[in-house]
């Protein structure tokens, strides 16, 4: 049975092209089966997941944190690589210069590593990391004689916050161009995917559903969901890979 999915109202403030992609999914699915529409609610927790959703991803974080605490410091590298873009994007709301922004993000990870022994798992790792990043950015601004912004964004909202607003206003056109290019490639590739791959990756990445929930929504086995999500990621990755490591250096 084909199950349509429509939940555009709760999308994070993603680019217009991505909205069009999701709308295309909804339109095609609704056309196929207009009576089978699933609404999954609009509230999210502080990690960006919906209430009742199986939050398995943070368990990966906690397992990695515990490995670091037990002496395997290489596990921290996976946390760095997982959150490096996200945290830098958050910090870019406070610091407009992209090079400086990356310095502060690196400093935030170093502080997090130093403090990781005290992390007890009471909060999600990213929420904890987010606070460290924001405090590091504010301290950096104070040290530079600049005034940090007073309109703080909550850690939960920060997950959905459009991290590039300030950056786009003042950073160099080269960096903004690179960001737009990356975003365009991803959305174009997703739009060109077969329906089942596009739906699977969107339900997972945009709506944060678990494989089990996606398998129920799409009416297919969990193994098929896993395969579809991977194939979608692999297709996007093929297009994204040439952009990586091509940071534009400011003259």
């Amino acid at each position, binding site marked *: 049975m084909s199950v349509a999915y429509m939940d555009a109202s709760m999308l994070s403030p993603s680019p217009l092209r991505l909205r069009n992609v999701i709308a295309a999914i909804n339109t095609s699915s609704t056309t196929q089966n207009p009576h089978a529409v699933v609404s999954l609610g609009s509230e999210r927790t502080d990690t960006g997941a919906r209430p009742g959703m199986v939050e398995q991803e943070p368990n990966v974080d906690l397992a990695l944190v515990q490995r670091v605490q037990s002496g395997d410091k290489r596990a921290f590298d996976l946390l760095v690589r997982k959150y490096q873009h996200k945290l830098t994007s958050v910090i*870019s709301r406070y610091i407009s210069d992209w090079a400086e922004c990356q310095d502060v993000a690196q400093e935030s990870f170093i502080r997090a590593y130093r403090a990781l022994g005290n992390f007890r798992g009471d909060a999600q790792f990213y929420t904890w990391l987010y606070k460290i990043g924001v405090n590091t950015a504010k301290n950096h601004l104070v040290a530079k004689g600049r005034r940090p912004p007073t309109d703080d964004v909550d850690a939960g909202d920060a997950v959905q916050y459009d991290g590039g607003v300030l950056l786009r206003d003042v950073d160099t056109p080269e960096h903004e161009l690179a960001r737009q290019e990356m975003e365009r490639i991803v959305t174009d590739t997703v739009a060109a995917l077969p329906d089942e791959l596009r739906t699977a990756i969107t339900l997972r990445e945009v709506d944060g559903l678990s494989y089990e929930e996606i398998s129920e929504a799409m009416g297919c086995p969990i193994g098929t969901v896993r395969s579809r999500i991977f194939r979608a990621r692999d297709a996007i990755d093929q297009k994204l890979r040439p952009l990586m490591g091509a940071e534009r250096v400011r003259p």
Partner: protein
Amino acid sequence: MNNELNEQISALADGELEADPARFLARRVSNDPALSETWARYHLIGNCLRGEACPPLRTDFSAAIWARIDDETAAANPRSAWLGRALRWSGGTAVAASVAVAALMMTTPAPPVGVVSEGLQTAQVSHSEVKPTGLREQDLRPDLSRAAHTVSATRRSQPLMPMWVANANGQSQLIYLPLQSGQNPPMLETQPLSPLMPAALQPVQPPLRDGGSR
């Protein structure tokens, strides 16, 4: 194979692997730069789809973090760093010393023939009766001035006789010739020979003891 591995990384990124495979794969990914990059890109894709894209980071973003952490660790613990270096140095020295001792034990040069047999035969006669002898202490010392020239050829059963001869240049040269049977060596004629052992190895009576016997 690579697709299968990447599919597992994809599932790991979603938190959809069982605990044991997840632990194993995470360890593998964290120790493989290429797999770590794949892991990072899969998360970046999610960021882009959620509108959290940012410009590409420096290629050494993660490496620079680890360089700082390592530097600070070394700076914060100079004693442990020094201790680590000292332990490594002493460990190497201990290994070298062990090798040297082993080499010495395996390649200790054999002492002169008489000396080796002296130890052995002294042990054999340690409880035997001590015979009075006229040898003095200096008679038991090795005669380096003579034997050192022809160590390999010299045996006490075949004494040598020193002789000066003229060489081709007309200069005098000292050589040692084996003695014929019945001929007395010029410097060993007073040594009493025992049928059991060389004369130099016969037990000697300490000259300072009273009575001349033990």
